[in-house]
């Protein structure tokens, strides 16, 4: 299974489902007495998730450990740590997980991997982790493929990257890597990072499998689920070669999605339409997703009362209501694009051209002062997390600096 993204969900109702789904998957594995589990990355949504998630994870992996089911993992793009500071490393330390991204000490620049052999099945498992922003590409470019290809026996390769040749329109914008960077001739390629199930064969690459996420790692996963995408894990039967590959769905929740094209409509009309639409179905025990897009011909996007819509649905028993209005804009308040010789110039010009639209009393948010403030704020919000900084420290640092720029003093509760 892959891309579990434990700790991703912010709403309590969805957190429960997230953990429930994982627990079901673990129970299923124990019930079926499987020989081992592969998790090719993003088991967690961050390298150090909240304590409740860690406690839960320890409990589940202990169940697997006591059932003598080894779990082989690699880091993913979300849960990796360059200094082994990930909860994955804690779980590895106590023996609940086994990291398979093992590098041999070898001369030269090449990355020579060594395998982990599963004691029961004798399968040889190699793996490379994912890193943020696709930086794991460097691993593959330096990978000594020949040594892996020469290895005899039943071989599995764990990896956390998308493959260009297998891209679909849904992930067209993503930067993946070419299939030629994978070592050839393995019996099974266990892939992570791609959140929808796929099983493909290519010349020299027998089975490239992505189980997809078991619940969600991005908001768009919930939308896809609402539109019918199945979530679950892959069951593989093999001896000296693969005999069967089966997708096992885990269905723990129902969805309802409302997709509304607001292009050319007034904000008041959209409001009425949505309020009317939500009365047409029973939202009880469902996750409701409302997706709106388009350019309103009049009114502001904030005039659409999504809060009221959400409350009404929850009163009728909806588990959770998720609103996606990222692509919703208003003609009266649209961003005018601007040109410039470089990114800096374009940013300043966009701010300059659009600041006049914002009707606000404070002088320092208007005109040239406003543009300058906006630029400083944007610069600050762009700062990335430092290597030895955890998520909470990072968040606090950014918040403090941002408030400082805005001239806002925060009272310290302690």
């Amino acid at each position, binding site marked *: 299974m892959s891309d579990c993204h434990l700790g991703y969900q912010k709403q309590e109702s969805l957190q429960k489902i997230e953990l429930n789904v994982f627990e079901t998957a673990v129970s299923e594995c124990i019930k079926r007495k499987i020989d081992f589990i592969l998790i090719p990355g993003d088991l967690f949504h961050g390298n150090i998730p909240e304590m409740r998630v860690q406690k839960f994870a320890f409990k589940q992996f202990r169940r697997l450990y006591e059932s003598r089911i080894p779990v082989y993992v690699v880091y993913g793009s979300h849960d990796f740590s360059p200094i082994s500071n990930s909860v994955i490393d804690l779980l590895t330390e106590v023996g609940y997980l086994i990291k398979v991204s093992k590098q041999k000490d070898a001369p030269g620049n090449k990355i020579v991997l060594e395998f982990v052999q599963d004691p029961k099945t004798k399968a040889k498992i190699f793996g490379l982790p994912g890193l943020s922003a696709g930086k794991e590409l460097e691993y593959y470019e330096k990978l000594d493929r020949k040594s892996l290809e020469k290895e005899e026996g039943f071989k599995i390769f764990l990896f956390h990257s998308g493959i260009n040749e297998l891209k679909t329109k849904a992930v*067209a914008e993503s930067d993946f890597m070419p299939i030629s960077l994978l070592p050839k001739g393995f019996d099974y390629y266990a892939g992570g990072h791609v959140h929808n199930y796929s099983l493909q064969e290519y010349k020299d690459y027998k089975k490239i499998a992505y189980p997809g996420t078991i619940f969600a790692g991005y908001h768009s996963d919930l939308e896809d689920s609402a539109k019918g995408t199945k979530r679950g894990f892959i069951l593989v039967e093999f001896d000296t070669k693969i005999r069967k590959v089966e997708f096992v769905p885990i269905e723990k929740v129902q969805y309802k999605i409302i997709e509304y094209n607001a292009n050319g409509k007034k904000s008041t009309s959209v409001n009425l339409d949505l309020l009317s639409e939500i009365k047409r179905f029973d939202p009880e025990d469902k996750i409701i997703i409302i997706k709106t897009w388009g350019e309103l011909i009049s009114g502001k996007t904030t005039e659409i009362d999504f809060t009221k819509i959400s409350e009404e649905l929850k009163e009728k028993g909806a588990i959770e209501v998720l609103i996606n209005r990222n692509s919703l804009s208003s003609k009266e308040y649209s961003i005018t694009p601007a040109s410039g010789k470089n990114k800096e110039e374009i940013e300043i010009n966009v701010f300059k051209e659009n600041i006049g639209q914002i009707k606000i009393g404070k002088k320092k948010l208007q005109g040239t002062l406003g543009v300058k403030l906006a630029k400083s704020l944007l610069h600050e919000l762009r700062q990335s997390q430092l290597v030895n900084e955890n998520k909470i420290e990072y968040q606090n640092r950014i918040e403090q600096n941002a408030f400082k720029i805005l001239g806002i003093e925060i009272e310290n509760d302690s």
Partner: protein
Amino acid sequence: MMNLDVVGQIVAGEFGSILVREKGGKKLELGDLLISREVNASLILQVFDLVYGSQIPRETHELMSGINLEKMPVNTEIFEPELRNYVLAKVRALAYLNKSANSTKVNLPKILPSFFNEIQLVNKEDLDFLSKDEDSFFVGKIRSGSKVLDADVWLPTKDVFSHHVLIPATTGRGKSNLVKTILWNLLPTKKVGALVLDAHDEYYGRHGLGLKDHNEAKDRLVYYTPSNPPAGANVLTINLQSLKPDHFRGIVTLTEPQEQAIRIYFREFKGDWISAVIQERPTQNPKEVAPITLAILKRIFRLTLGLDLDEDGNVISFNQVFDAGTRGQTVADDIVKDIEDGKIVILDTSRLVDEAELIVGNVIASRIFDRYQNYKVRGQLDRKPIVTIVVEEAPRVIGEDVLKNQNSNIYSIIAKEGRKFNIGLTAITQLTSVIPRTILANMNTKIILGNEMVQERQAIIASASQDLSKDDRNIASLDKGEAIISSIFVPFAIPIKIPLFEDLVKNQNEPKRNIKTKVF
């Protein structure tokens, strides 16, 4: 005191054909660049012909030769032979250089050099006006006859590629070397994105040295090949959903019923239209398309795209390039994205028939063209790199016959209108004479390699940006790796020597030593 640098002296002639008497032993060559130093200025001259000159009448020479050959016992030695018999070089002025303290202004020559002026061979310092610009790419060294001067020739990158490039060359004159050299020098710059249809799989370097050996190839070069891609390269698979009827226009000859049939199938089956034709699925109104038309279309797709049916009735591809399933859905978009990032994208089309190669190119070129048209409307064109599409055997798409008998295709559209949208063609051809003049006139840079065919030389000369009327012999005698650049972006037709690609690879700086990478 005699100046040892002097190679000749102006003795006669007229504008366009000045006669220079060669100094004994200097052995002037066709194409030699000479310089006549004037007051505060210089004239660059080029030898375009060599003739014998003599103080002795020709008949006397013939008589003396006859006596020699027939072994008659008469002394036929010529008195002071170096004075009486000599070589006359016919030269023409290429450029008038007006030197000031800080710079050299280059103009077209409008005067004759001073009569009886002593002439020298051009040296590196005389050509310092050919300096490197921030936005230029290296194409070769100045050549004077067969001698190579240590003076680099740089062309303005954006201008040259947005105004189209023609490389007329017959086989064996160094065309591949030239294209590889140009692409090698373009690789590090992000100013030009290139789509290269590599019909002989010779540019990437799968089996030897190639563009893959550039230090920046990892980030700036993308290679697609249908099978067995080397590590880091991509599999070239185009999903059939990416192909539309327009992509066949001007490339595959279709009758009107056939054109109508494909439009009907496209309308009805949308992205699945090609599979529907091959599977002979009936349309809603079967009478719209005659069975014979459908059968012929099926045959056309089999021959051009390599598509057929397997035993289960599924569409399969013999050349493994086109896919009727889910593969290759985003390949065309990925290629366009890379080109817009200023990368060089090479498509190995060596396994495809001509039409398939051009259709694949069409799919991508059309997308780029549409996007760049859009950028222009939105005022964003200047933020994007110039795009060039490198096509071999260009008459297949911009030849007179093709354009007369079929509709225009994306390549001819780009040749005529691409400049407005910063998209250019780099067209390689053995047959310039079959390309219409209207298109040739738009190709503002011609890198002319050797050509032994008179008709082709005439066509090249007629469409050149400079007066090459005296260069017929010069072009005929260009050796492998020698070229003449005729362009609106150079002050005169520049003779160059293109470096050997293997030397470029060997001479590149050692890549920075990478620190060993630790796997987390």
